[in-house]
């Protein structure tokens, strides 16, 4: 594999932003026919390195060699014409157009009568077939296919331009296991055709499943380049976070502490809470000091249930008791008044306000509760910032920096701080650890565990079952927009037992028996 010349070689790359050394003397090389994963925490410089390669950022020093010659690109389009295509985490296609148009945009086949759509769609079909997507009709609208398939369409678009280098920036963060497998099949196929693939992912399992080689970055510095099979996971994690991974392991001991008396009056209790077309009626209780995990596959109704509890969507059935008092929570305002907070899974669109500073983002919810007539004084704002930036270890701890300049993990910490500042008694966290690195993940998990210990009720939603199992006291399992069971967490519960429950949902008792689990009776599971 390494006999050939690298197709991309970046040497001694440094990039400095005002006040931050984003990259310092980083080396990176990419060979044809390999999958090379770029590893590092958020803020380690992975995205910066990719943007340096594609010319989005200007490098301050260092050289970039592509296919034997020195090159500097002026942007995505320029890099693309040199054979370097990028597929981003958020699918960057136009969902108002058809699949074929998206594949061929800018490369439509033209005849004397302008674009020849028959030939163009044919070419799109060939490109899709090349990735094993021959069954996709190029004439169907992009919006009609799943996100995972859209991602593959984006890759076939890259292949139309005959790319020699394919950059996949966190392509798997919103895919489920099957979809990831499909993506990997495509990646292997391309690798075997000699395409050099630069892969970024936060999921260690995926990294080990697909990559041939790893480059680790930390704090903008080059830590090392390794063959994947030479480096085990523990070593890799230590390389990435620079501290012992014991911290992570220690978190696991929190689960199933059994501190909550199941017969005590729950802080939040809902009976038959549901909304037509969103989620079937569900019973859910959350005690003070308890973390209730919502587990299920993408689209199982996890987020929908969280939004109903918060009143972001108006429930059309069900009764809610808060502290034993019948209450209507039909709007977020009502939820906040009852000390219920909700942190969205959609950090970029529904969470942060990118152009505002960290401070302004942090105080938003508190200020909203107080009303505009009583603005927080500068001193109060500063106190909030001091408290939460330190408590949640936000880096850089600069309250006046626009939040969009922070890494995803740190943005998430600020969001958490925003809701904690309202002193909620129940906080719903929808995918608080999605798309962030393992260090920040550990910190956020730690913060959640601490909050529960301090008596806060937490509803925790995550697509990573390991994480749900690690943190939750009880786990509500959802499938196809209904609750199929509820598990009291304990040492014998693993991610696999939840997967089994979902897979065999018709016979939850049998599964529970087989796995030796304690299953809470629910009407749904019997029905």
């Amino acid at each position, binding site marked *: 594999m390494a006999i050939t010349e690298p197709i991309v070689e970046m040497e001694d790359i440094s990039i400095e932003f005002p006040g931050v050394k984003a990259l310092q003397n980083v080396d990176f090389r990419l060979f044809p026919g390999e999958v090379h994963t770029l590893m590092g925490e958020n803020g380690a410089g992975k995205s910066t390195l990719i943007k340096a390669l594609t010319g989005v950022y200007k490098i301050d020093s260092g050289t970039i060699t592509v296919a034997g010659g020195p090159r500097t690109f002026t942007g995505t389009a320029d890099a693309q014409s040199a054979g370097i295509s990028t597929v981003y985490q958020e699918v960057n296609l136009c969902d108002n157009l058809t699949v074929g148009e998206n594949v061929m*945009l800018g490369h439509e086949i033209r005849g004397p*009568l302008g*674009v020849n759509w028959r030939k163009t769609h044919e070419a799109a079909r060939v490109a899709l077939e090349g990735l*094993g997507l021959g069954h996709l009709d190029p004439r169907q609208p992009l919006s009609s296919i*799943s996100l995972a398939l859209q991602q593959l369409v984006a890759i076939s678009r890259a292949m139309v331009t005959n790319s020699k280098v394919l950059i996949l920036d966190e392509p798997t963060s919103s895919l489920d296991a*099957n979809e990831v497998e499909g993506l990997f099949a495509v990646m292997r196929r391309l690798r075997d055709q000699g395409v050099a693939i630069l892969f970024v992912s936060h999921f260690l399992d995926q990294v080990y499943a697909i990559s041939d080689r790893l480059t680790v970055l930390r704090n903008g510095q080059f830590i090392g380049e390794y063959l994947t099979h030479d480096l085990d996971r523990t070593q890799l994690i230590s390389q990435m976070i620079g501290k012992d991974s014991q911290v992570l392991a220690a978190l696991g001991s929190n689960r199933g502490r059994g501190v909550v008396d199941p017969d005590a009056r729950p802080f939040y209790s809902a009976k038959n809470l549901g909304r037509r077309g969103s989620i079937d009626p569900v019973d859910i209780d959350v005690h003070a000091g308890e973390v209730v995990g919502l587990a299920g596959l993408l689209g199982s109704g996890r987020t929908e249930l969280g939004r109903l509890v918060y009143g972001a969507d108006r429930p059309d059935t069900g009764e809610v008791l808060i502290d034993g008092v019948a209450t209507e929570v039909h709007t977020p305002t009502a939820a906040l008044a009852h000390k219920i907070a909700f942190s969205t899974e959609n950090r970029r669109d529904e969470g942060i306000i990118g152009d505002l500073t960290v401070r302004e983002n942090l105080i938003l919810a508190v200020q909203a509760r107080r009303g505009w007539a009583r603005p927080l004084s500068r001193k109060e704002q500063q106190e909030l910032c001091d408290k939460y930036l330190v408590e949640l270890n936000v880096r850089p701890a600069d309250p006046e920096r626009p939040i969009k300049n922070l890494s995803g993990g740190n943005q998430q910490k600020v969001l958490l701080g925003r809701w904690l500042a309202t002193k909620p008694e129940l906080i719903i966290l929808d995918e608080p650890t999605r798309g962030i690195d393992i260090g920040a993940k550990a910190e956020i998990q730690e913060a959640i565990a601490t909050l529960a210990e301090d008596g806060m009720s937490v509803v925790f939603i995550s697509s990573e079952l390991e994480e749900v199992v690690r943190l939750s006291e009880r786990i509500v399992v959802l499938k196809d927009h209904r609750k199929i069971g509820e598990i009291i967490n304990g040492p014998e519960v693993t991610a696999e037992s939840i997967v089994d429950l979902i897979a065999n949902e018709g016979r939850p008792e049998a599964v529970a028996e087989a796995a030796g689990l304690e299953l809470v009776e629910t009407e749904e599971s019997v029905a």
Partner: protein
Amino acid sequence: MSTLLERPTSGPARSARPSLLTRLKPNLETLPTLAAVLIFIGMIVYGEIAYGRIVQANTISNLLINNSYLIILAVGMTFVILTGGVDLSVGAVIAISSLVGVMLANAGWNPIAVIVLMIVIGSAFGLASGILIQFFNVQPFIATLAMMFLARGLASMLSTTPERLEDDSPIRALSTEWTLIDGPKINDLVITPNVLIAVVVVLVAFFVLHRTRLGRTVYAIGGSEQSALLMGLPVVRTKLTIYVISGTLAGLAAVVYTSKLGIAQNITGVGWELDAIAAVIIGGTLLTGGAGFVLGSVVGALVLGLMNVLITRDGSIPPEATTIITGGILLVFVLLQRLVVSRKRKT
């Protein structure tokens, strides 16, 4: 892998070329345009039953002749709105362009040179809007609003009284009436060169939007400008181009209107940009961009034109109420669009 591959297509895999029927089946994107066509037909049927003499050659001829300038404006506006922008300057551009044209023609300029200059004035305003939007990061609404005030102000500086084009000016030849079918009494099928210009503009626009990379980039920008950029499409060039197209067509509309009326004034075209926007929206183009058809905008312009005809025929509706009805129709279509967008979100 297999589940991934099997999930997306419902039912058996379709053949590479779907039948004509499935391709014509109304989908969410064509629905608003289809609705516009239905409303147009409905108005014709209603008019014919209630007032008579609608489906006949001279009514249709007049509809086309009187609205050819609006059709041209609506075509230009379609390009802009498809990218998610808006051009508020077109009405004022018509005022300055036609005033300059009439004054120079009366001063003895070569009519061809005058016409070219009138169109170029439009292009120049479009280019200025485009540059403001693209390189100075000004909102399209604000940039074209500024151009609107500039154009209107310049026109008022030139003259505040109606300037009459001499009756024997060759420019007026553009509104020569050619009788195609000599019907009984005045019921003739008549067209003018202006109508032909409008038809050519529509056909060229259709070709550009659906058969050139420029056109596809317009749709892509409307779908997601960020994505279009990351896909390496020439976003900057395309956005400049569409504002130039809009301005140029405003200049052309000025030529068409001036040749028909023979008068130019600084208050010509007040509110026409809004008529053009209304035509585009009624024709089914989404205000947020990315979906719509130039032929829809033509139907939209004709709906507005026919509405005026019907109101005149009715006689009991005061002409002042026209704008209320226009507003009502517009509202219905915008609500329809909201429905389409919300349905699309759910799927």
